[in-house]
């Protein structure tokens, strides 16, 4: 049991209707991820990697197949339950940071806890602690537009960590950053991974992929290679 995967995908498929045309974004993906893994998903655009990430993040439901998170099948849960899982068990890091402009840094970090109904004091404590961890202690009361891109992405990472997630999903986290800031972000990822966090990252950049443990390539909605570095 100790080695059983934290995430297991069994024959996962997703079909969209785009007008009259059916688009098969994923065609039966079988994958397993263990805790502490650092995975990159790569592939040309339209290969289904965004769809896969959305399904992993419980933002979408598969057309068929099973998604087991921690041994529980999530594919049949209702919207509220999926929201609960997103808030409590999954961390998101987006390409365009996706911070909420009217909130301060510390409030942005605390959003997932807010939606779990935690007390304000607890939320702010935890958020301040994580701001410190990503090196933004002196910025906690700034608004997102007062920060550089790299700083905003660090806020996003702190926000992804605040609920102590089973897995952190990162969608091109360095796509909008210059290489120096991008490296800073990846260094933080490496460090967190060493501490036992599971990362699944989508990227185009082979260099970044080289830093990770395992690279999965998709094409036309199917896994074409699954390589350990």
């Amino acid at each position: 049991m100790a080695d059983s995967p934290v995430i297991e995908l069994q024959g996962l498929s997703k079909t969209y209707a785009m007008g009259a045309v059916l688009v098969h974004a994923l065609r039966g993906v079988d994958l397993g991820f263990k805790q502490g893994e650092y995975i990159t998903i790569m592939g040309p655009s339209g290969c289904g990697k965004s769809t896969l990430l959305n399904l992993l993040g419980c933002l979408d439901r598969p057309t068929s197949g099973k998604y087991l998170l921690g041994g529980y099948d999530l594919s049949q849960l209702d919207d509220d339950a999926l929201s609960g899982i997103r808030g409590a068990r999954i961390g998101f890091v987006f390409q365009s940071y996706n911070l909420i402009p009217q909130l301060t840094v510390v409030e942005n970090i605390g959003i997932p806890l807010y939606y779990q109904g935690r007390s304000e004091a607890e939320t702010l404590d935890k958020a301040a602690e994580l701001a410190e961890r990503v090196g933004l202690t002196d910025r906690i009361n700034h608004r997102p537009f007062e920060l550089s891109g790299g700083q905003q992405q660090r806020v996003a990472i702190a926000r992804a960590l605040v609920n102590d997630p089973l897995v952190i999903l990162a969608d091109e986290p360095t796509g909008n950053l210059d290489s120096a800031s991008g490296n800073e972000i990846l260094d933080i990822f490496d460090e967190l991974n060493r501490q036992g966090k599971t990362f699944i990252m989508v990227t185009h950049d082979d260099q970044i992929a080289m830093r990770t443990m395992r690279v999965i390539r998709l094409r036309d909605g199917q896994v074409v290679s699954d390589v350990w570095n």
Partner: protein
Amino acid sequence: MSGTKVDFHVFAAPPRLTYSYVQRTVLLGFRSLWMHRLRSLLTVLGIVFGVCSVIAMLAVGEGASHEAQEQIRRLGSNNIILHSIKPVQDQNTSSRQTYAIDYGLTYADLDRIRATIPGVTIVVPGRVIRQWVWNITRRVDCEIVGTVPWYTDMRKLNMIAGRFFSMDEMEKISNVCVLGESMAAELFPMDSPIGRTVRVGSSYYTIIGIIQAEASTATASPGNSAEQAAATDKATAATHRMYIPLTAAKNRFGETLVKRSSGSFEAEKVELHEAIVRVERQEEVLDIAAIVTQILQRDRKKKDFELVVPLELLRQAERTKQIFNVVLGSIAAISLLVGGIGIMNIMLATVTERTREIGIRRALGARRQDIVIQFLIETVILSCSGGLVGVLLGVAIPVTITRFANMITIITPWSPFIAFSISALIGVMFGIYPAFRAANMDPVEALRHE
């Protein structure tokens, strides 16, 4: 490492409508609205003016109707007022008019009313003649009131000096008079007028008393119907009054009034211009009014009197006010509806504009209902703050009107509360659709939105 043993208690989502959750959501709402101050301000203007106009219009309307009702009430809700009116004449008799038309209420009528109806406590007959009153070379424009000795009891007027005339003097048709205090001061600035005489036309009257001004009594104790009869005369508060026995008035000034109209003289003989029948209990007013009409009609060929029942007028005024309120209410409802639609319009735009924020929140664990609550609270904040400003303006406007336009306005205590509650309700009503639209967005689509 045991990755499978995961606590999934989150499946049962905790209830979130706690005090601190709502408090934080409200704060968040304020900040989101504050980010677009001008837009928020313009959005709430509809509600502001709606609420403000409801309160202001109600206050002005209430003031106007209060004034009308007060005037009617001054006639006395226990009173039945009888007026003499000139009957409609046949065309052929009026063409060759050589005799005086004899019409109107008579002393006999009043005797009969008093004798027939037990509920009637008092009848004040009165004649009012406007004349100059002289003291040697000083003169005063004055209303000479021919009345009865119990006049002071009815009006609850106090004598300042001397006494009012007696029944005896009335029967003897004595030339005595009682002056109002303002008039006494003007005619006799130096010494006491008691025992002196004043001249009216060619007759002299001995002054036996000075009485307090009627207007002051009328305002001092409103609601006492009898004394309010003063207001029935069109006398203003400043009018000078002199009281003489009714019989003297009848003798000296006669009952014949000569009027010149279109080349011919018309003479009219009227015993009494006006009389007030006072009824002990208000419930009996309408019945007794009917009886009085019957008594008076019994031996009259033509209708030469008019019966005014203030109570009936009061009821009519109340009905008018109800209609007025319904009309005002509809106008208010429409203006608030328009305000609500304005809010909904902006909230729909806001939801579209903030699609990405909604996506982020959904990704970070917000349930649909969290999004609904967030946007609903924002709408309610908008409409409530609009309502609050509207209430303040709506209270300020009538106050300003009263101060500068000298118009009575009455803000009924419930109207600000009702107006405010309606504005809050409108926030909920018109916020529901945009909020649900926000909540039903697909998180994936919302996150992709630019």
